[in-house]
């Protein structure tokens, strides 16, 4: 199935003098302390991976509780106050502790330097500091569990956040700190891509995952400071009652929404752009074909990052902004669909007449194409002013958001985790089980969330504890779907965990990839490459590979 092309197209131009043969980043040093003080980007990536997966499990646990509560129209397992806390923590954990840091922090950290042939990121110590800031932020955020909870929703809207009791300051401070972690990671990546590329790695030879990560980093740097000052103002507001945002004190609640979405709309591109990048890798490698429209995909990432800064007002169509502003924001929102469409069509064109291997990563990538298409198109419904009046704050929004964030980013993340699992751990997982997990997750996901499109279009408001009896069948179907998703993740967990113990030893290049991470050892040595690679071809140059199709489009 796989064709290894060890070192194809790379020349060796110097002799390294790094770690001894046979040593790799796992066994180079031993003990917990060596991990906590490491500056190796790969080890930091692993710690991010474990941390964000723990956050994901916790957020997922809250999601299952929420769905269980919604099994019946009235009280099922928890009180209304607990329900509010559960959906707030589900959102806050998933957004700030999982989806924003997961792909850049875990996979970006691990693979970005390897993919450009560098030994590490530009600022390794700063990288470790990012991780510690993330942990600190996570401690404060999760500390709210024992410090009175939080009922504001993950958006911390004023006046909920200025008047309700609970650990608002604690959680917003945690998010504030985690934001600095995000900023420093973005800063590190931008400098690394600019300054540390190995000989021959030109901008147009960067794997598309890195174009996506670069665009993400720009957003992280430009948007996150605004969230920081917003949360700081909110903390001051709550601590000193100064009335920046609270109308009762002379402030403006809509101003909070402007500030918050000025960050948080670009932030959804922090969440999805790395996922786009991963899909480009998965599709090209597992279809063995040179990616179609490399530059179009690369620049569409940049375009999405830039346009993403100009659409925040579409979260506030019914919040009392002027009709003129709403119209402009609506128009700009439609603009985002263009670069997004460019990506989807280029991926499909890449698959066209290629030699698709239905490996686990490809199964997830194809699921992504279906789910993200639905998620993206329903975004256009919501961007339309008249339709949004009907759909805003309903389950339609919830379904749209989960189709892009879970159907998009999480599917890409899990697919890429399988794709790179052999390189990271040196072990192969069970292919069959992997494919099954992808299919089960796809089914469970659609059961859970497609149902919510229907619920939303029929008027089921989001965040409600009780609902009308007529909605019960759909709610129950959705809840059963959430159990299927849970099952799929248990399969993934079982598969990956057992592979560590009993999986076959992974070769250096199990999928026959052309980009640099496949040209080094498995698992990589501490310095990534025994000799600095010299790159003479693009990351998807399958044209010289007799087993690949699509040689004619080069």
């Amino acid at each position, binding site marked *: 199935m796989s064709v290894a092309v060890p070192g194809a197209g790379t020349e060796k131009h110097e002799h390294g003098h790094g770690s001894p043969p046979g040593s790799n980043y796992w066994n180079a040093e031993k003990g917990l302390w060596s991990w906590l003080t490491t500056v190796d980007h790969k080890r930091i990536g692993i710690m991010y991976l474990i941390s964000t997966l723990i956050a994901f499990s916790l957020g997922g646990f809250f999601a299952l509780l929420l769905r269980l509560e919604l099994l019946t129209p009235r009280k099922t397992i928890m009180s209304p106050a607990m329900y509010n806390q559960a959906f707030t923590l589900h959102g806050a954990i998933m957004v700030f502790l999982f989806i924003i840091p997961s792909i850049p922090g875990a996979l970006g950290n691990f693979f970005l330097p390897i993919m450009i042939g*560098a*030994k*590490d*990121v*530009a*600022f*390794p110590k*700063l990288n470790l500091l990012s991780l510690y800031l993330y942990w600190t932020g996570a401690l404060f955020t999760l500390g709210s569990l024992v410090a009175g909870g939080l009922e504001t929703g993950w958006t911390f809207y004023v006046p909920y956040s200025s008047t309700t009791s609970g650990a608002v300051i604690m959680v917003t401070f945690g998010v504030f700190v985690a934001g600095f972690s995000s*900023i420093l990671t973005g*800063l*590190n990546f*931008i*400098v690394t891509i*600019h*300054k*540390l590329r190995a000989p021959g790695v030109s901008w147009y030879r960067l794997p598309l995952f890195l174009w996506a990560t670069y665009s993400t980093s720009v957003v992280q*740097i*430009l*948007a*996150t*400071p*605004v969230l*920081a*000052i*917003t949360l*700081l*103002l909110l903390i*001051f507001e709550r601590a*000193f*009652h*100064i*009335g*920046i945002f609270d109308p009762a*004190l*002379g402030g*403006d609640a809509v*101003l909070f929404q402007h*500030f918050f979405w000025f960050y948080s709309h670009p932030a959804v591109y922090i969440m999805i752009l790395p996922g786009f990048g991963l899909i480009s890798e998965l599709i090209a490698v597992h279809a063995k074909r040179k990616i179609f429209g490399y530059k179009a995909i690369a620049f569409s990432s940049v375009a999405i990052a830039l346009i993403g800064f100009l659409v925040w007002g579409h979260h506030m169509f019914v919040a009392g902004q002027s009709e003129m502003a709403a119209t402009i924001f609506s128009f700009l929102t439609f603009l985002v669909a263009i670069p997004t469409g460019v990506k989807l069509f280029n991926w499909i064109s890449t698959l066209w007449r290629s030699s698709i291997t239905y490996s686990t990563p490809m199964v997830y990538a194809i699921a992504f194409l279906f789910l993200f298409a639905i998620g993206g198109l329903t975004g256009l419904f919501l961007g339309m002013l008249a339709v949004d009046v009907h759909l805003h704050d309903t389950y339609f929004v919830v379904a749209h958001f989960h189709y892009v964030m879970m159907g998009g980013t999480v599917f890409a993340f899990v697919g890429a985790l399988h794709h790179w699992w052999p390189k990271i751990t040196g072990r192969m997982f069970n292919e069959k089980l992997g494919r099954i997990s992808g299919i089960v997750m796809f089914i469970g996901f659609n059961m859970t969330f497609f149902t919510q499109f229907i619920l939303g279009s029929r008027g089921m408001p989001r965040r409600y504890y009780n609902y009308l009896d007529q909605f019960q069948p759909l709610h129950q179907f959705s809840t059963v779907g959430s159990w299927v998703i849970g099952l799929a993740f248990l399969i993934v967990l079982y598969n990956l965990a057992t592979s560590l113990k009993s999986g076959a030893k992974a070769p250096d290049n199990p999928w026959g990839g052309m980009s640099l991470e496949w040209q080094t050892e498995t698992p990589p040595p501490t*310095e990534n490459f025994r000799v600095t690679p010299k790159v003479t071809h693009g990351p998807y140059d399958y044209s010289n590979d007799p087993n690949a199709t699509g040689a004619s489009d080069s």
Partner: protein
Amino acid sequence: MSAATDSPIGPSDPKKHSPGWSIAHHFDTADQQFDSARMGIWLFLVTEILFFGGLFCAFFIFRSWYYEAFVEANHHLDKVMGAVNTMVLIFSSLTMALAVRSAQTNDKKKTVLFLLVTLLCAGAFLVVKYFEYTHKIHDGLLPGKWFHAQGFKHANAGMFFAVYFMMTGIHGLHVVIGMGLILWIMIRANNGEFSQRYYAPVEGVGLYWHLVDLVWIYLFPLLYLVG
């Protein structure tokens, strides 16, 4: 003062300067390392500008909403003290720039001296700020619900002082952090760690300090002068 006999940038014997310095393992050349550090600092400054940008945005919004109250409250700021502080900070930016220059020309004594002057200016700024704050607190010119000064014609003067204390307070925090950083590179400069081969930390802290100065240059007219 051996550096004085060297040409400003030209190496007499570069090895004797910054003896403890080396290129980190993941860089190929000193230039690559220095360029990376410089780019990192500039990107960090971008985030600082956006951070303060949110505050300035809030200031403009509330100023247009509560225009009369802002104009009235504005007269209660001490323009002389504000002007003195502006002078002090601009002068400290000059000495900071001179410190960077001295580090580049291997002039250890001058580097330390200029950094010391910068540090003293930063301290002077905070002392003046302390007197200003004390005076405001004494007069009851405080944020939001603690505002209890008498004789204001317009409501919401407390909003002005909320914005004033937050903007100058966060700026003041940056001054304090800057003092720590200046002290840190001053000690390192005194140990002879910087030279034409290696002065990235001096330049980085210098750029940060200029930004702190720049933010104040906008804060002073907006808060104190515009009526």
